């Protein structure tokens, strides 16, 4: 029973796992369940797509304009990936490897931008420049208006870079100091060590972060449209919102999914290499690098990043509030609304992590074709436009389990589906850094798989799991379309409140709730992250 074969002994290539013999059930079943749930939206899309009429289809879907929109979207994704890397990589290095102070506070600051809803960030950037912008009004200085490709790239980067940051940070923190020591003893300078030793080990988390960011960019409509940049999500949005149509929107969603799939494939090509520690003995913590004169670059850099990603939205929210302070009664309703948001977001985050864990385990420890298929299926929920996913779940629950419809359970499950991919990245990367031999040792000492998991594996995955939970939690706190359709009637979250007010032009009334999203999410993140240090 205890002699579960591990990756080192399992045949790796061209072989689907033989049920039960190689992969223990407690890993296989939840993984299959997660993949199974992801098939629901695919089934729904196929059903809707089949209703299409060919002539209309060519007019709507296979037309040259969609290609233009697609190219625009890809250019945007490329820009965002580059910009976020320049933001996240130095930040992660500073927080993990340097002797910079207040590391925990800096880490929390590095996650907060995730909590800023996309349209608030866009409003903040748009409102900054121009004749009558915030800057002109406060200082008399005029900045050109931020918009178009540049504006969209900037806005998206400012609130998606934490995806990359958290991934990189977890990996950097888990990296074995011995590796670098050996490299240095072989005569490498610190730049070579970074380029030849650290960077290759960061590749999986870079890819995981890039993938998540790229898929986010593909689906984002709010910020991109406010910035007046024409992207592919335009096409889907107008199909639902302009035409109240589900058939051709399904086709466009399928196209988007195909594009996403190609990115997921690309990712799995790169992450194939094995990057577990090779040395024996305990991983050695790395001595922090002294910044020295570098700090005169580091501090302005941090100021710039946090000023733009946190200071700017804070400024615009404060400005809205000051323009016309809402009644006190508005503020009184914030805590209850927050509890509703968090009451669903936290279970969703835990559920997503609970699904991600066995999937990550399966792909890292029992690699096979079927395993990677399951892993890729986890991206379906994330890559689909949220509105499509929500409609699929409406369809599914009304037909198979009407008692679930518009219950919190369905909302939580759907949120978990939409964000499973976010939890997967950091957990998988943490697992990649844990050697199978540790489990083997535990097994040979007579510990069962459960004891081994909690005593040996879990402590090493803690950081990764926590990162996953945080990412999902913060995303759900600001999620809109799924909440609109699936939350129990009357279950108004912070994000819904902010959206309904901003879209009616009532910015001042929206401000306290938007601020609450950011503040409460940050507090929750801070709470989660302070737990991680203690063992």
């Amino acid at each position: 029973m205890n002699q579960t074969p591990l990756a080192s002994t399992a045949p790796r290539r061209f072989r689907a796992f033989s049920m039960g013999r190689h992969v223990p059930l407690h890993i296989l079943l939840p993984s299959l369940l997660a993949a199974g749930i992801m098939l629901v939206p695919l089934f729904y899309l196929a059903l809707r797509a089949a209703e299409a009429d060919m002539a209309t289809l060519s007019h709507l879907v296979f037309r040259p304009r969609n290609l233009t929109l697609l190219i625009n979207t890809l250019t945007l994704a490329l820009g965002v990936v580059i910009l976020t890397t320049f933001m996240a990589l130095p930040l992660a290095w500073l927080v993990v490897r340097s002797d910079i102070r207040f590391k925990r506070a800096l880490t929390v600051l590095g996650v907060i931008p995730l909590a800023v809803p996309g349209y608030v960030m866009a409003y903040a950037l748009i409102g900054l420049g121009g004749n009558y912008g915030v800057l002109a009004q406060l200082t008399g200085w005029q900045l050109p208006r931020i918009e178009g490709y540049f504006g969209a790239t900037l806005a998206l980067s400012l609130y998606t870079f934490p995806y990359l940051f958290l991934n990189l940070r977890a990996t950097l923190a888990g990296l074995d100091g011995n590796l670098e020591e050996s490299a240095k003893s072989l005569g490498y300078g610190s730049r070579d060590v970074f380029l030849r030793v650290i960077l290759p080990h960061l590749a999986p988390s870079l890819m995981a972060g890039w993938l998540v960011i790229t898929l986010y960019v593909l689906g984002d409509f709010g910020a991109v449209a406010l910035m007046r940049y024409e992207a592919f999500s335009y096409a889907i949005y107008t199909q639902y919102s302009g035409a109240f149509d589900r058939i051709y929107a399904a086709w466009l969603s399928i196209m988007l999914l195909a594009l996403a799939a190609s990115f997921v494939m690309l990712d799995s090509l790169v992450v194939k290499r094995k990057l577990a520690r090779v040395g024996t003995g305990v991983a050695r913590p790395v001595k922090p690098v002294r910044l020295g004169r570098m700090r005169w670059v580091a501090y302005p850099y941090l100021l710039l990043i946090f000023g733009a990603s946190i200071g700017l939205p804070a400024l615009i929210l404060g400005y809205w509030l000051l323009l016309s302070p809402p009644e006190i009664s508005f503020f009184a309703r914030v805590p209850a609304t927050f509890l509703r948001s968090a009451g669903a977001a936290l279970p969703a985050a835990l559920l997503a992590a609970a699904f991600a864990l066995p999937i990550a385990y399966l792909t890292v420890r029992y690699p096979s074709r079927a395993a990677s298929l399951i892993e890729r299926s986890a991206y379906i929920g994330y890559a689909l436009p949220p509105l499509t996913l929500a409609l699929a779940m409406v369809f599914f629950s009304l037909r198979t389990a009407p008692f679930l419809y518009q219950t919190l359970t369905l909302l939580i499950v759907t949120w978990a589906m939409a964000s499973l991919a976010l939890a997967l990245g950091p957990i998988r990367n943490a697992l990649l850094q844990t050697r199978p031999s540790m489990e083997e040792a535990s097994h040979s000492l007579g510990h069962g798989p459960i004891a081994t998991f909690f005593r040996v594996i879990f402590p090493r995955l803690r950081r990764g799991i926590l990162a996953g939970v945080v990412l999902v939690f913060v995303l759900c706190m600001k999620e809109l379309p799924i909440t609109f359709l699936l939350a129990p009637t009357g279950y108004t979250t912070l994000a819904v409140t902010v959206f309904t007010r901003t879209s009616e032009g009532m910015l001042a009334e929206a401000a306290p709730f938007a601020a609450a999203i950011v503040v409460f999410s940050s507090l929750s993140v801070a709470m989660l992250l302070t737990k991680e240090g203690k063992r």
Partner: protein
Amino acid sequence: MAKLLTPTATILATLLAVPLASANDLTLYSGRGESMAEPIIAQFERNTGISVNVRYGDTAQLAVLLQEEGERSPADLYWGQDAGAMGALSKAGLLAELPGDIYEGLPTIYTSETGNWVAASGRARVVAYSPERVDEEALPDSAFDLVEEQYEGRVGWAPTNGSFQSFVTAMRVEHGDERTLEWLEGMRDNGAVTFRNNATQVQGIADGEIDFALVNNYYLPRFLANDSDFPVEQAFFSEGDIGNLVNVAGIGVLESSDNKEAAIDFVRFLLSPAAQQYFTGNVYEYPVTRDVIQNPELEDFDRLLDVSPEIDLDDLDDLEGTLNLLRDAELL
């Protein structure tokens, strides 16, 4: 992890026991924002003792949701922001017929002849402009004028926006597809600047990015309420011009509702003087009935009736044709 599981389980258990709506309650899907709709719903609850469960959301997304739910829908009422969404649901056969007396006394611009939804408040299209850069005499007479050279690169519009699309639908009804497409292409070639929504266009004028914008009438008053110096003004085009289209927020009762009587009471309440007074006084929209005190910030109601083109609201439901046209003009 184990530490987190206990509180989560507790939260889950409490929240799953969401009280089921009793038969007497109403369920309302509201495309109208909470801050605007809530006071009026609370008043209805106080008056009648009927409690209303409200699902707030985006007008279009809720309309799509109702189609997906079909006859299984838990909703009794749908309150949407524009005639197009109401028309789409009506066409899909999801709305129940309303008693004829509900339409009595409504001005012709507000009537729906299919008889299964009714306008609850009016929202006029206007041209917003910068008083600094635009002479009042130089204001365009017609939306059609905006393709002229003097307006090149100075006009904002929002092709993805629902009320803009309803306006284009009205233009098609009044002037035909050919002339509308010509106008759309003319605007595009004249460098019309694309925005996401109305509010950002009004801000765009203040910021000097554009000088004119085709928007709904109630955004500017909301900006002005926050900042009386806000440097934007707005006007109607000349009498009867399609640019002055009056669109509506509408309400309808779902065919699948099992509480239609109470739902119709709610519809009647929205048309009552108290509710109409609230729409015009607090939300800067036009009333659908005449027996209310006018909002001094708005153009006179009678003038609105004079300048607005006569379009049957039922004709605004052909959004598909409009979207095709917008696609032909490479705008979507």
